[in-house]
């Protein structure tokens, strides 16, 4: 057995986690990111972590990587110049989009409309038409197509997307355009909508295909650069990237379908939480990933994270599977303010970001942030363990005092108010993925990670009634941990769109088997041994006429045994759970999906030495903090010195290199066998 290296490149830091698959031991490292060329920071990190572990780069068998390179290309509009070929009469498909204007009544007055991802001047149309049933209504014309492609060539496009009306039902016309494009624009990558997303809804299919084409050259360049630099450093292992849905895909595959890695970053935290949960003996987890400007939350039920069929990047909703991660603009850098007109206390979504950052960081920030409130209250001690800078508590106090003055309350009440509001915003996001989906949060544990998650997890767990509140091992590099410990995955989907009454189980199994064969072939091509591949199916069902489908996971055997009726009964139960009623309306089977996964890795965590329950050996010093409306005595502990079984009564603070865990009064924490801190009500 060898080593797996997880690498997560964030805006400020590149996190690395090296995992010894034999012993479960791991090493972690944080190094500044190098935005001009991320591979530089990665290489620095690889060298450092290999030194720490005493291994050589060539010992690393798998290099597993979560990256925001595709996300940023979309958000910053730095994707390739994409030419779009669509059907005559639909030239403005990207301009009109779904006609939706956000912001409620009169929201149009202040809405800045984004420009389309494929520019209108780079959009051309061709003759020829398919029907919704996939029959040809009018033929295409090669000369017409050549003219259109010639026009795109003249415009200097860097990638070509073909998205024709009803191509999801018959892709023959798109294929011909693709063939001619290869001839007329040699070397320019071509994406066909019926291959990227064979589903109904022309705008979503086109947008997804265009987004894929736009980020392809960026991701391709990134991957090949990374690959050659790693090779130069002596690493010969497999290079895989984390998909938005929490599975891994080979770097080669990611270059072809980068639309699947748009939410690679946040997915890492969720897969990391999954690994922690397994080792902590927890099955149901709500995740709370608190960063500088935002917080990501997700739900894991029975060790399976919830997925959704859409990936949201900025204002764009792309049809690609992703973990159902909700983001709220509340983080350590969120700025508190009191608007003149309403005298309300608002926190975020404006953020001080990394620069100038919170006042307490002393980098020029002047506006009060959540971090400053944490410093004022004593939740973030002044001299962080292993931290290289001193926190400016006096500066933080001055900033928070401006809020206290505007509200006419005292300093500590204002600081705690800021914390309460930001916790409430996180609580709102967690409710969206739990209560509003029909889940009872009391059946879940809440896991806080990212730089500030362990600071807020106890208070938010109290709001949710989700216990224990978990501060996992290495909360600051959990994304990298997730990258290192998840499995290969791929999937394919097709529109079915028929009433359930007109379909048979055998018919569905026939189609699903065909799709399964395709996904297995994909994984085999990525080097996964055939014997290790597991396949599951998903069937999307709704009442005919509804817009919302419920995805149901099923195997061929169960489908054969229970028939269509079995699926429909499960749908009715799920619909009732979500919406409290069922209907007599016929059911419609909307989409079919096949998912193939590589072997689930059995990667145990290393155990801590056993203690006697008394954490005194880890005590750093006594401390005073402000909680429940008064000053209270507390103790600060060094996480590295805690042993399994240690019991820590609140209020207390546990410090480590890159994170701080706050245990509130009225609560008590225990350290589990592998070092996770589990907080419960006393």
């Amino acid at each position: 057995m060898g080593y797996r290296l997880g690498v997560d490149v964030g805006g400020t830091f590149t996190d690395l986690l090296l995992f010894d698959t034999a012993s479960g031991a791991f090493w972690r490292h944080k190094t500044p990111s190098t935005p001009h060329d991320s591979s530089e920071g990665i290489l620095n990190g690889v060298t450092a972590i290999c030194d720490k572990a005493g291994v050589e780069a060539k010992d690393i068998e798998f290099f597993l990587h979560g990256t925001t390179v595709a996300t940023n290309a979309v958000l910053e509009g730095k994707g390739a110049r994409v030419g779009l070929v669509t059907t005559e009469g639909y030239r403005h498909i990207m301009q009109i989009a779904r006609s939706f204007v956000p912001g409620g009544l009169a929201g149009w007055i202040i809405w800045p409309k984004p420009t389309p991802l494929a520019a209108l001047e780079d959009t051309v149309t061709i003759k020829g038409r398919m029907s919704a049933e996939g029959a040809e209504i009018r033929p295409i014309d090669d000369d017409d197509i050549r003219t259109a492609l010639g026009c795109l060539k003249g415009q200097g496009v860097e990638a070509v997307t073909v998205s024709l009306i009803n191509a999801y039902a018959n892709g023959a016309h798109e294929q011909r355009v693709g063939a001619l494009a290869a001839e007329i624009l040699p070397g320019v990558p071509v994406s066909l909508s019926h291959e990227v997303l064979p589903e109904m809804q022309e705008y979503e299919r086109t947008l997804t295909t265009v987004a894929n084409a736009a980020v392809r050259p960026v991701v391709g360049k990134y991957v090949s650069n990374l690959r050659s630099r790693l090779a130069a450093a002596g690493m010969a292992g497999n290079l895989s990237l984390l998909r938005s849905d929490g599975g891994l895909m080979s770097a080669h595959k990611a270059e072809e379908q980068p639309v699947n890695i748009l939410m690679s970053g946040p997915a890492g935290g969720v897969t990391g939480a999954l690994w922690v949960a397994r080792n902590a003996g927890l099955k149901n987890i709500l995740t709370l990933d608190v960063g500088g400007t935002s917080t990501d939350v997700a739900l894991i039920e029975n060790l399976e994270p919830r997925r959704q069929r859409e990936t949201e990047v900025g204002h764009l909703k792309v049809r690609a599977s992703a973990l159902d991660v909700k983001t709220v603009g509340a983080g350590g850098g969120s700025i508190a303010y009191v608007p003149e007109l309403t005298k309300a206390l608002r926190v975020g979504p404006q953020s001080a970001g990394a620069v100038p950052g919170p006042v307490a960081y002393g980098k020029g920030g002047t506006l009060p942030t959540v971090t400053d409130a944490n410093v004022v209250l004593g939740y973030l001690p002044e001299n962080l363990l292993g931290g290289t800078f001193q926190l400016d508590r006096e500066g933080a106090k001055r900033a928070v005092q401006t809020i206290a003055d505007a509200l006419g309350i005292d300093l500590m009440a204002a600081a705690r108010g800021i914390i309460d509001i930001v916790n409430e915003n996180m609580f709102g996001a967690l409710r969206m993925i739990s209560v509003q989906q029909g889940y009872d949060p009391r059946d879940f544990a809440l896991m806080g990670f990212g730089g500030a998650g362990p600071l807020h997890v106890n208070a938010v767990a109290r709001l949710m009634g989700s216990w224990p509140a978990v501060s996992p091992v290495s909360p600051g590099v959990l994304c990298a941990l997730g990258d290192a410990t998840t499995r290969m995955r791929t999937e394919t989907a097709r529109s079915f769109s028929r009433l359930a009454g007109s379909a048979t189980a055998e018919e569905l199994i026939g189609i699903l088997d065909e799709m399964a064969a395709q996904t297995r072939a994909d994984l085999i091509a990525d080097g996964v041994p055939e014997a290790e591949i597991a396949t599951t199916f998903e069937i999307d069902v709704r009442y005919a006429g509804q817009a919302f489908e419920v995805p149901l996971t099923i195997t061929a055997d169960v489908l054969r045994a229970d028939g269509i009726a079995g699926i429909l009964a499960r749908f009715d139960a799920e619909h009732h759970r979500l919406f409290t009623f069922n209907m007599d309306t016929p059911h419609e089977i909307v989409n079919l999906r096949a998912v193939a996964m590589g072997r689930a890795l059995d990667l145990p965590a290393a155990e801590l030495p056993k203690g006697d329950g008394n954490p005194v050996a880890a005590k750093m010093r006594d401390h005073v903090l402000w909680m429940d409306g008064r000053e209270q005595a507390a103790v600060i502990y060094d996480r590295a010195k805690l042993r399994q079984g240690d019991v820590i009564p609140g209020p207390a603070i546990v410090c480590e290199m890159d994170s701080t865990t706050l245990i509130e009064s009225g609560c008590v924490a225990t350290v589990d066998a592998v070092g996770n801190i589990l907080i419960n009500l006393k």
Partner: protein
Amino acid sequence: MPATIVETNHTPFAKIAIDPVTLDIIENALRNARIEMDATLVRTAMSPGIREQGDAFPLIADHSGKMIVGQFGSFIDGFLRGYSGTLEDGDMIFLSDPYSCEGAVSHANDWLVLYPVFKDGRLLAYTAMFGHMSDIGGSVVGSMPIKARSIFEEGVRIPPVKIWKKGEYNDEVIRVIMHQVRKPDWCQADLNAIIASCRVAARRVIEMADRFGDDVYVSATQELLARNHRAMQALIGMAIAEEPVSFEDYICDDGVGQGPYRIKCTMWRENGRVVLDFAGTDPQSSASINFYLNENMFKMFFGIYMIMVFDPQILFNDGFYDLIDVRIPEGSLLKPKFPAALSGRTHALGRIFDILGGLLGQKTPEFLNAAGFSSSPHLFYSGNDTRPGKGGEWFQLFQIGFGGIPGRPMGDGPDGHSLWPGFTNVPNEFLERYFPMIIERYECEPDSGGAGLHRGGNGIRMTYRFLADGTISIHDDRWFVPPWGVNGGEPGKRARKIIEKPDGSQVIVGNKVEELAVSAGDQLHFITWGGGGWGDPLERDPALVGKEIVQGLITAEGAREYGVVANAGGTVDLAATAALRAELRAGRGALPLFNFGPGIDALRAGCLAETGLPAPVQPVWPLAVAAE
């Protein structure tokens, strides 16, 4: 007699001082509950009007019926005044008759559910939602008969009834109602969805009261209302003058040959309050374009516009209502007398927003938007699907179209977008999959947006090719009186509808037509209006004008409205452009604040030649006195 509220616990809520943090937490939780109402609705509704297009409106009110979160403001006090029954724990009210709720819903297609939320024997809150049903029976498919002369022709009309009575479901009344409609499956699903939304919100309210205490919750709602009152008072003092300003605009016609109908509003500040007076608005129509405008709803529209124009950060509620006095003459187009027909009220509803914009922006042209909010165009298509294999199955489509967003202080108006909150278009592949039609074209109509420094958004040209014989109905406006431009911007182009036969011959049809027979193979070109332009078009960057020619958003001919000389390939002749702009500047006077086009008389005179349709004739009201 007003409604009797039956409470078993008579302890009044205690007024408790609320700290600002708790207040903000409760406000935030209420906002989330309202978002959850929307989500529940669109996931479970079935008619394309609600599930794809989002034509529905939620509300959470305090125990006295004032809206705390929502969109269109509360109508509950009006309902309570008019309802003579009791309201008890476990009751849920269902209604659709505009005349029984002072216009809380403004046509019978909107079904409203009102749910009083009781906790421990006390009325704690109300939740409510209404949504547009695709068909409620009556004389035409879609239940919006243009030619109706009374509400009795417009389908089932539901007075306030208890759909749930002390926890018992009233199955019989629902059976009676569903018996009247053409699409009971859609109506039932949409009604279920509305009920589920109200229940979700009620559950959230009760959870909040459990968490904070009933007294804290109720006190917080009162403080939220008070906070809004203070904010709006400040805004009114800043933005509304004591000197009256007036604005008027028109509904083009009533669908039976008369028009245009004038809507006029005058606004001034008096003793710290705003008066909005609709004196001068034309009397009610004998057809169905009347809009029963609820005064509270108009207060909310006014408040939202104030907020969006001057300070978008505020969350709005009903707290400011007593700062606004809305006066609508009885018997006018906006307060018709029973049993006037109401189903075609969408045009006047839309026009109200243009009037608000014109009123509020007059004294502050830098905040002024052009016109475009000119109703929401509807298409109905129904028949039996006679294609092979379809078994002659009945189909009916109700679709809302979109036009151009007006030119704005912040920039161009988006092309082909929705001015209504939350609305989206229906995917054309969805239409082709489920209805006998092919959508041959779905593109911007070039040059339809009014020229300006900030161009008005273009309307959409949508071409339907029908694959089965059937009938269509069209409801649209702004075909006769154009959407005005502002600050020197030009008006947008008007709406048009054309039927093209398989032999290529074309017939111009009206913008309010009913039950028009179409044959398989016919095409309908459904062209919507463009938004008005903002600012001097001669100031627009010629390079941008050239680029938009390449993009198909304007034509070389249309570029001349910007004083730009360019060829069809978008290449701008800079010298010729400079010359043309100089010539145009010399030949025009001072730029007007509003550009309404040539005026009603000239529009009438040129109507047939310009639109292909005869001009509407001046309405006469033999039975009504002018509403003054």
